[in-house]
């Protein structure tokens, strides 16, 4: 039971990170109708920028950890958001009204660009960081000496996810920008006729998605203590799996799907085999799609002739 509880905690933390990335996929898919293949690499860039800014701040002589973390978070969100904006401008906007496959391939190309850009600029080796947030609580002492641990960093990841999600939900449901986004999702032409700046709204979607991915990247860095140039690919596929699992286009679905993928992966590693955890996640994606082709919370697609 204790072992189960521990894995549940680990799975929820991992799932929060996946969920944050998945939201970026699902938002872009909802509005533009394309798979932003480069989103996983934006997450990777976010991790890198968090790492570098952390290093620079520490060497500048800052010692207050909370202050450093706050600055790192803001810097990495801002710069990564600019990456998202630039990618949309360069690679996707010229193809907005092109045929279906064109933006997808452009996105795959962009993903290669980002992966190899960070490999060329930062080197291929894994970048480790010492644990920044240490300590934690023992929730329950088991009979065989197994204790359920809840570390501070896990608390922080979950808290940060909740705060970011709350902010994001408020943004989508209560602000002018959120209303524009929902309008564009339903009908771009009509939204444009009613005075919504569609181009700007789409840009902002990418910016917000990238900022969320940056938060995920920083959490990943803090939780696992390393980044490398290739981490965006697998994390990206899994987050997209999460988005599809939750029903692509649905924001709560993305978070739910992220948690589900995180839990599946963790439990599979804990009870079956670590090697096949990714196989398990992908297989479950396929199984879910057979029985629920629109995902957990997705709206059924109406076929129009």
């Amino acid at each position, binding site marked *: 039971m204790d072992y189960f509880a521990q894995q549940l905690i680990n799975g929820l933390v991992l799932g929060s990170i996946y969920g944050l990335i998945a939201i970026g996929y699902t938002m872009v898919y909802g509005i533009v109708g394309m798979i932003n293949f480069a989103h996983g690499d934006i997450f990777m860039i976010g991790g890198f920028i968090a790492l570098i800014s952390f*290093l620079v701040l520490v060497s500048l002589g800052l010692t207050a950890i909370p202050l450093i973390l706050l600055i790192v978070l803001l810097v990495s969100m801002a710069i990564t958001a600019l990456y998202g904006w630039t990618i949309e401008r360069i690679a996707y906007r010229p193809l907005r009204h092109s045929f279906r496959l064109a933006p997808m391939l452009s996105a795959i190309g962009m993903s290669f660009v980002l992966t190899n850009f960070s490999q060329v600029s930062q*080197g291929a080796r894994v970048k480790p960081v010492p644990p920044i947030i240490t300590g934690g609580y023992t929730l329950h002492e088991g009979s065989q000496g197994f204790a359920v641990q809840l570390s501070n960093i896990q608390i922080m990841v979950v808290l940060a996810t909740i705060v970011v999600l709350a902010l994001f939900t408020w943004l989508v449901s209560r602000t002018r920008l959120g209303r524009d986004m929902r309008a564009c999702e339903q009908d771009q032409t009509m939204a444009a006729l009613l005075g919504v700046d569609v181009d700007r709204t789409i840009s902002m979607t990418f910016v917000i998605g990238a900022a969320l991915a940056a938060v995920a990247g920083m959490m990943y860095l803090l939780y696992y203590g390393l980044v490398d140039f290739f981490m965006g690919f697998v994390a990206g596929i899994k987050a997209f799996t999460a988005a599809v699992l939750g029903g692509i286009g649905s924001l709560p679905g993305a978070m739910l799907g992220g948690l589900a993928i995180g839990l599946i992966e963790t439990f599979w590693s804990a009870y079956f085999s670590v090697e096949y955890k990714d196989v398990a996640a992908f297989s479950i994606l396929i199984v879910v799609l057979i029985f629920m082709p629109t995902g957990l919370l997705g709206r059924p697609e109406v076929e129009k002739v």
Partner: protein
Amino acid sequence: MSATSARPSHAAQPSGGAFILKKALISALVALVLFSLMIGVRTEAGPQGGLIYWTRFGDLAALVATVFGGSIIVELLRQWWGPIDKDSLVPKPVQSAMSFAGRWLAPALLVFAFLVPVIFYDQRYILDLSILVLTYVMLGWGLNVVVGLAGLLDLGYVAFYAVGAYSYALLATNFGLSFWVCLPLAGILAAFWGVLLGFPVLRLRGDYLAIVTLAFGEIIRLVIINWQSLTGGPNGVSGIPRPTMFGIPLDNSDSGLAARLGIEFSPTHRLVFLFYLILAMALLTNWVTIRLRRLPIGRAWEALREDEVACRALGINTTTTKLTAFATGAMFGGFAGAFFATRQGFISPESFTFQESALVLAIVVLGGMGSQLGVALAALTMIGGFELFRGLDQYRMLVFGIAMVLLMIWRPRGLIGHRAPTVFLERNQAISSDLVKEGHG
């Protein structure tokens, strides 16, 4: 954002030096922020395990200056070029010249392909490269059945390539079966996996299909890596037998081809044989595809690509149509995989990453989705271009990615032409894009 919102489609496009300068400045500023940390600071794991960093502000400044200059040049070029009119009519003489070239290009290329080993007999590198190009031509033609004809977006094509390669490698090393026995087996096994993948994805559309096929490709790769007792895991399978010319080995033994013909042995013989082997296999793929297109099943694929709902309304069984498309494409992938294994003599999971799938898909899309000649030309361009940048080493994939994005922006419909419609109007008519949109199969 205000300065950069000028698009070519706008009637009154702002121009003039001030505008260009402003735009270039904004681009440079964006570049400065983007690259400030990623280029300006280089991190590396230090000797004591911690991280160290050093700054590279010179590189950063050079890059930002390049973006500034590049932005000015691009903007000047754009104004000189005028607004991009996608549907501009090509003048009659050019049109007829192009159709003439189009008619004779394919036979000319074919004749040239047959002559390659004769012309370049002494140049091992070129022979090797042409074998590689032909492998990708075959893969492209195989994937073309799924993506170009049936319109099913497959991001995991490399899985079938891997199945074919491992089928041959394992059958040959464990049971000593010859290449010619294993080739059909590899194709059948790959087709079987194609059907296996096809079943769950039958109900999926468009992008869901893409992600499931991608996941499938990853599953196959991960299983290959982890099932060490069968596949050797990351170490791969080595010592895969070379192909024989219908039982006659191509080596310098007494029973080898050179000894039997009484000519001097040369390792090039095997290369030439491999070249003609892959050429024959690619041409077989092409021939089967062209024949299938004229059969009801091929027509059904194309109908499925255009509109799945209409397809069903007309009584076409979409289930079997999709499954046959998957199986046919997978079979050709399996053939190509078996060839790859016998050519390399060694295979490992590293050869079957998503990058390969993306490369083959890029070839199909750049080739114009459904055009056989286009796929061949795209394979030649992509693999040739890839080789040109071999010296750049780690920058190669970066250049490949940039090229992919630029090519998509420049020619989203592919390098040459588009698929030829069977029925068309004599006059050009303005048709709303909603009416000619792709089906979402």
